């Protein structure tokens, strides 16, 4: 097919949204806020799995920490009727992601699995994706990070170490997804089984507030949870169509 034919063909095909229907998987996550206790096990799990840097006190004070998943905390009311609510905040892997459109070099785009990927090698560091992201879950490498020897020995060889000047963010542990797909292929299965792959945060969550799975599989836990009446999306009014769905915290009066 000549290039012109390809363009003509593409002109017919690609003028409407809906490219995503062709995806193999559509990974998603649910976060049950009624289960979340704010223990931050997920934060450390992510740091461990994805080689997040130890930035040090100075950089932390300057606001340059890197936490792909973080716990946000909101107080409600005043003493003595006071509540503290936690919400884990991570890349929402929006299907209509504002960050993707703004990147001039396509360093972030939507892949075949419905993931919002960040290609570190391609990133030139305009940081515009972080500005465009309403969830503020994109983290920039303000320095080349350093691991005091022998802390570098704990680095996960399946995940790259990002250099200064590039943006990074939650990948839904893409290396684990890949491995699970390889295993499925080796086993002669066409698809990854539900629960076979879990990002580090989901894997460790002691209260099982986080659940991960394929939204295209109607039988997966995550698909079922997404039918729960408590579901909502954070900043839904922005129409980002996120893949992370929260389940409302249950608060009843003391009856």
């Amino acid at each position, binding site marked *: 097919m000549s290039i012109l034919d390809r363009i003509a063909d593409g002109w017919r095909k*690609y003028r409407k949204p809906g490219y995503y229907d062709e995806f193999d998987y559509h990974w998603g996550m649910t976060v049950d806020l009624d289960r979340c206790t704010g223990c931050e096990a997920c934060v450390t799990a992510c740091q461990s799995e994805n080689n997040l840097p130890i930035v040090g006190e100075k950089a932390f004070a300057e606001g340059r920490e890197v936490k792909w998943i973080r716990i946000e905390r909101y107080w409600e009311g005043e003493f003595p009727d006071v509540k503290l609510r936690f919400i884990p905040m991570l890349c929402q892997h929006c299907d209509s*992601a504002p960050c993707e459109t703004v990147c001039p070099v396509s360093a972030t785009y939507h892949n075949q699995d419905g993931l919002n990927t960040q290609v570190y090698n391609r990133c030139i560091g305009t940081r515009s994706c972080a500005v465009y992201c309403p969830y503020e879950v994109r983290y920039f490498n303000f320095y080349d990070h350093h691991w005091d020897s022998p802390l570098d020995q704990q680095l996960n060889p399946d995940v790259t170490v990002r250099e200064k000047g590039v943006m990074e963010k939650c990948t839904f542990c893409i290396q684990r997804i890949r491995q699970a797909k390889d295993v499925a292929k080796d086993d002669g299965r066409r698809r990854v089984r539900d629960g076979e792959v879990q990002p580090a945060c989901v894997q460790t969550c002691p209260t099982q507030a986080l659940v991960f799975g394929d939204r295209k599989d109607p039988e997966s836990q995550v698909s079922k949870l997404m039918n729960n009446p408590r579901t909502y999306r954070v900043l839904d009014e922005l129409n980002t169509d996120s893949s992370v769905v929260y389940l409302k915290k249950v608060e009843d009066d003391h009856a």
Partner: protein
Amino acid sequence: MTNFAAGIFHGPESALAAAGTLKGAGYTTPELMSPVPIEGVEEVLGEKKSVIKTFTLMGGILGGTFGFLLAAGTAVLYLHPTGGRPIITIPPFLIITYEMTILFGILFTVLGFFISARLPVIRERVYLPESAVDKFVVTVACADDEHFKRAEAILRDAGAEQVREVTEEA
């Protein structure tokens, strides 16, 4: 090798008048050299057709096509789905089209200018440096001395303060 008669004038009016007379006397189109553009040249020496606007238009059309193809065509070749938008996202591509239209328009205008103004020169041509300061010069090609004499007379009549014979290498 061509000889030219060059009359040097103080002001544009007399120079223009001289050029008009020369043209009327059957000389091949006399040339005016001046430090500033002279108004009313067209009336005297005849309407000049410029190809520049054609160039500008062609540049614009070409640039627009190129710009749209650059954005939309390559989007099909490099499938990067972003932000839930279609692969061929017309509105943003129109901006690329717009910018490319202007860029090519500018470049082709310049090209048109160079071609129609016969710049840059590749060979030495008749030139009197005074014309760049405050003199107005009328040059006209003369086949022989006879011609030159006649031209000199016309130029002096029109008020040229000086008439020179200049030679241009072939």
